[in-house]
């Protein structure tokens, strides 16, 4: 039985870790390129999930169409947030604390718009209409279609993002912004255009991860918020600047929440009620012992901020 539990939890860690990675990369991007610890990211994730729900009911149950439209809608919401709230604060040269508060405010506004919408159209706790199917089965574990949607999609997107950042002019511009904002402006990088594209990218990542998270669980206005601490823990493990560090951080958090939690429950009877404490414990330990996270492990790679 222990072997089955262990394998099952490892598969789950991989699945959840992939989703955390998608969400956390968005946070790392906003933090390093836009200098914003964006808590509204949680609501971009939820917007993506609600878009997926509506698309699956009214347009198509094809996951590619669902993910595509979720990415577009969440991107638009992210960009509108930038234009209407974050950019005016930037122009006032507001401190990071004010920007942090502004991100909370944006998140709350979006959340309560979602609450009102869900209330009006009875969209609380709904399932995205993508049926669950068993695609691979052995004596010890089962892999569903959700696993094969989540893990490869995340890996492909992470690779695509890495290529974008490392092998395209836009990526170089984004990294220049992350490295030295004023210098980037002086050497003629179109700062505002890069910011717009970054917000679109961040929104798309959140939208896709929200849709996938919704397919895996169910959709409610709080779904992004309840997962955001784990995602921030992953981003903090990545030092809030390193892509590979963030991805590794995402899998470490998912492994802690799933495999380690499962083993502690099975061997020592530790209640699953302690599971929400795990991201907090990770954040505190990392900030105390290794504030730079995993950044140092990936010095040779191209991180966003060198």
């Amino acid at each position, binding site marked *: 039985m222990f072997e089955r539990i262990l394998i099952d939890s490892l598969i789950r860690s991989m699945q959840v870790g992939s989703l955390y990675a998608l969400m956390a990369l968005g946070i790392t991007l906003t933090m390093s390129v836009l200098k914003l610890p964006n808590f509204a990211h949680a609501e971009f994730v939820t917007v993506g999930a609600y878009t997926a729900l509506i698309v699956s009911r009214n347009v198509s149950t094809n996951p590619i169409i669902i993910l595509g439209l979720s990415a577009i809608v969440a991107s638009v919401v992210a960009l509108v947030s930038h234009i209407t709230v974050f950019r005016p604060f930037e122009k006032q040269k507001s401190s990071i604390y004010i920007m942090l508060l502004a991100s909370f405010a944006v998140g709350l506004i979006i959340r*309560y718009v979602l*609450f009102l919408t869900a209330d009006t159209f009875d969209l609380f706790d709904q*399932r995205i209409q993508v049926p669950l199917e068993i695609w691979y089965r052995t004596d010890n574990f*089962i892999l569903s279609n959700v696993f094969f949607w989540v893990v490869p999609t995340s890996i492909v997107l992470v690779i695509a993002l890495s290529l974008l950042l490392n092998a395209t002019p836009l990526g170089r511009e984004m990294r220049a912004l992350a490295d030295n904002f004023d210098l980037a402006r002086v050497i003629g990088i179109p700062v505002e255009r890069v910011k717009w594209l970054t917000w679109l990218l961040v929104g798309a990542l959140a939208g896709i991860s929200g849709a996938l998270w919704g397919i895996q*669980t169910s959709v409610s206005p709080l779904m992004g918020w*309840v997962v955001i601490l784990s995602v921030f823990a992953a981003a903090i493990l990545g030092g809030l600047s390193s892509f590979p560090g963030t991805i590794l951080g995402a899998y470490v958090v998912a492994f802690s929440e799933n495999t380690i939690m*499962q083993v502690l429950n*099975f061997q020592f009877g530790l209640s699953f*009620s302690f599971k929400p404490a795990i991201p907090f414990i990770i954040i505190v330990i990392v900030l105390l012992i290794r504030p730079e996270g995993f950044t140092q492990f990936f010095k040779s790679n191209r991180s966003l901020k060198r």
Partner: protein
Amino acid sequence: MAKRLSLLISLLLLIMIALPVQGQDDVETYVLGVAQPFTGPLGSFGTDFTRGIELAVMQMNAELEASGVNIRFEVASADTEGTPDGAARAVQTIVQTTGAEVIVGPLTTSEVLGAKQFADENGVVIVAPASSGIPGAIPGDNIFRVMYPPDNFAALAFAEIARSRGYENIAILHVDDPFGNGLAERFTIDFQAAGGGEVTTIAYSPEPPDLSGEATALSADVAQLSGSGNTAVFCICFLADAQKLLQVAQIDPILTTVEWMGVENLVSPDLLADAGHAQFLQSVNFISVSFTDTATPLTSPFIESFTAEYGDPPGPFTNYAFDAANIAMLTMLAAGNDGDAVTGMLPFVANHYIGTSVQAYLDDNGDQAIAFYGIFRVADDASSFIEIGTYNGSTGLLEMNE
């Protein structure tokens, strides 16, 4: 002459101005506090409950006016946010800003317990229309849980169902809050008292992002228990959590082989909206109980007036908020706007109140003491829940129609 005339006109004007003021002063206003969750996951319940309460107040004020009674009720509401802390703040805000001594609400047992200390210490009466968690059953406090019966009735009903279905062991997954902990604990006692065997419990934190780990642990528990007899799963979960659990359970090689029971909030069309979940629940003979409404002379008038006033029919349990408001107001009319007097008088009034769906009757804890449950399973086409029996909480009698 002109001076006298202007003096007379001034006097007349003064009298005209003073008269309505004098009339208004004669009307005494009682503030009825309303503490409900207007935001958060329970926001839709709170909004609908408040409409039910406001309707009761409108009807009562109209009757008082028509009868020439110079008392009017006024609603003062605050948002509990669906949390214990929020409930405490809401009740405190209402009391301190309006002087209200009677509050209708909050919604859940966690919220009611959150507001309890302030209410008890300040002589404020809480009339909760839908709280049923066992930890809320406390004698001698200022909390009255009218209309909706406490979960010890549901625990007995589930224990009786388990006995009648021949379950020897039960694996419970429950939310780690007063509702989940109380029902799991009470069910275990009742199940084992009725000759049941081993019970394992897995608690999960409220509002979990997902429940896949808990599902794996539940599967392990079932595998272990199945070795010593017929085992079933008992899901004491909220609807959204159950959906997350089913997403994993429906492909689990062990959880698909045993029968399932679930608490009454799972008797919802939303649980069957996903075809895979519906088929799974049908295949595991999922069974649940739900507090059955019975028609009373007040049922139709309530639904009709609510629909006429708000355009939509009342949502689930809204009638209990309407009833709770009526019980609170009738008590205040009898005892005055005084918390201590209302505490003493409310059981007498409640015990003589015919509700919109059930007769109110309170036990020594100030909780509803009449419970009558319908027993539900998933229909053969997995599209809806159908009633297959009843459980009478007063007699402990389980009657199955199939």
